[in-house]
């Protein structure tokens, strides 16, 4: 690495990064304590970041700071740009209700935590109505494709195939009435199953390539950054 000072913070950053990669890849040989330690380290670091992120980006700036009046910076003469909004005190209600979660730690009063868990489940259910319909509607309208496109035979064939796959896969999950052996539904669902296999194959290929991209990036890091940084030790 040109321009990287030995034992500087950047050097240690690269050195530790490579060490971490080696520790994780050591799992390929067999499960070992070296891998376990770094796996736990990753969980610890991730947990800390996941805990702090919502506090930094939401809890403090949007709730606690205005509630405590700390979002108002005084002018040089000691007056404030705007008065404290008493409506911020209303934040205490959801915060107090949310604190009921902690009763889950008390066997006697755990039912109080169930109130807030139930409330959250209800909110999740209420939001999912909107979420599902908002997500489904554009896909549903896009699925109504013209089977004959004027002047484009290829496009027409593509659309026919699209609808064919959609309907056959639908038929695989259609259990509302009894299927007669060798009936249309049985054949259609067999085709649907085959189409799904093709779809899973394509998805599988895309997933492998995404993982491979990560692997290549790590190998590039090891070869282009870590090894030159390490070799500075005996140069």
């Amino acid at each position: 690495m040109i321009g990287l000072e030995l034992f500087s913070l950047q050097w240690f950053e690269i050195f530790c990064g490579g060490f971490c990669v080696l520790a994780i890849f050591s799992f390929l040989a067999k499960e070992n304590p070296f891998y376990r330690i770094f796996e736990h380290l990753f969980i610890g670091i991730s947990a800390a970041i996941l805990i702090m992120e919502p506090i930094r980006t939401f809890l403090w700036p949007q709730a606690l700071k205005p509630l405590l009046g700390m979002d108002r910076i005084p002018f040089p003469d000691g007056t404030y740009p705007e008065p404290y909004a008493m409506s911020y005190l209303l934040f205490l209600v959801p915060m107090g209700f949310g604190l009921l979660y902690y009763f889950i730690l008390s066997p006697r009063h755990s039912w109080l935590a169930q109130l807030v868990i139930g409330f959250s489940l209800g909110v999740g259910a209420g939001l999912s109505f909107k979420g599902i319909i908002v997500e489904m509607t554009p896909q549903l309208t896009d699925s109504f494709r013209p089977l004959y496109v004027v002047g484009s035979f290829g496009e027409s064939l593509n659309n026919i195939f699209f609808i064919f796959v959609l309907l056959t896969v639908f038929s695989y999950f259609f259990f509302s009435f009894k299927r007669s052996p060798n009936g249309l539904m049985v054949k259609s669902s067999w085709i649907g199953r085959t189409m799904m296999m093709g779809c899973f194959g394509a998805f599988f290929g895309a997933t492998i390539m995404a993982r491979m991209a990560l692997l290549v990036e790590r190998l590039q890091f090891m070869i282009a950054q870590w090894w030159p940084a390490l070799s500075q030790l005996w140069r």
Partner: protein
Amino acid sequence: MTRLRNKLIAFFTFIGGLYFFLEYILPAHIGGLEFGKYHEQISLAVQLIGLMAIGLGLINIFRVHGVRILKLQGGWFNSFVLLLGLAFVLVLQLLDFRRSEQRSDLLLEVKNFSLFVNRVVLEYEQKQIDYRPRLDALIDRLGVLKTQVKNSSSLLATGKQLDSERTEAQFVRSAEGAASATEQLKGALWQNNYRETKKITLDQLALLQSVTQELLDLNYEASPARRWGNFVFNGFFTPLGSAMFSLLAFYIVSAAYRSFRFRSWEAVVLMIPALIVMLGQIPHGPLYVYSGLPEIRRWLLEYLNTPAFRAIFFGSAIAGLAMSIRIWLSLEKSPLNTEETKQ
């Protein structure tokens, strides 16, 4: 008593979903009532309720791993490393957070100087409130900030960094310029001819604000908490995460070898699109076998993958909708139901 509690839980579950359900299905205005008027506040409150559980996760981690360490159970050292990493990053994040907050507060204070000058002039015009002590307070504050930079004793002092000395000198000049312009504004207000001077003062304060922003950014990036935070992120978190996920590539390939052998019709159908998608994504090299593969790959993803996944999604979405209604109306058997749990 238990039945009453269960009814209460069901009631809270119903209330939780009711607003968001109605907010979606009802029109925005019903007569004179605007239904979603407080939607932002209600969403904020719901998020706050959820966020209160953050500490619970932390307590559980400390309980599970703390007990393992105290009792020296198997894997106690791993737990120790986990808690050490957690505590270290938490402390770093807290220090970084504190610094970042101090930085944004100071920047807001400097931004507010322009607002302050406007207010002082307006209140003098409308209510005849004395402007002199108020503008003197601003001049004093500018003097304090300037001295702090000179003595390297505030967030505006960056130490001996690249470009920082130049920016520090710029800050001192801007603060002096702003103080002098404010002094002139006082005189102009006395003579009741202040329009031009006020504009000059506001321009000086705007300049000061941009230099302050630059200085605070330099200071923040140079702070130990920030640098060590970056060290942990780039030296541990990113490589560990990437390596962990790339490790799966080996296992996926190994699983593919076992399942993709031509043993059944489905295996063949699974393998061919997978191969096309993989080969179609390779831009060059020995595995770049055919120039038309990217187009075939695109066609497969658009006309086979999309409708098949869409059909699966429609089915699961309808099932999800039904499940949501059951949860919302507490028709679903739930571990929250204490009576059922006891049975």
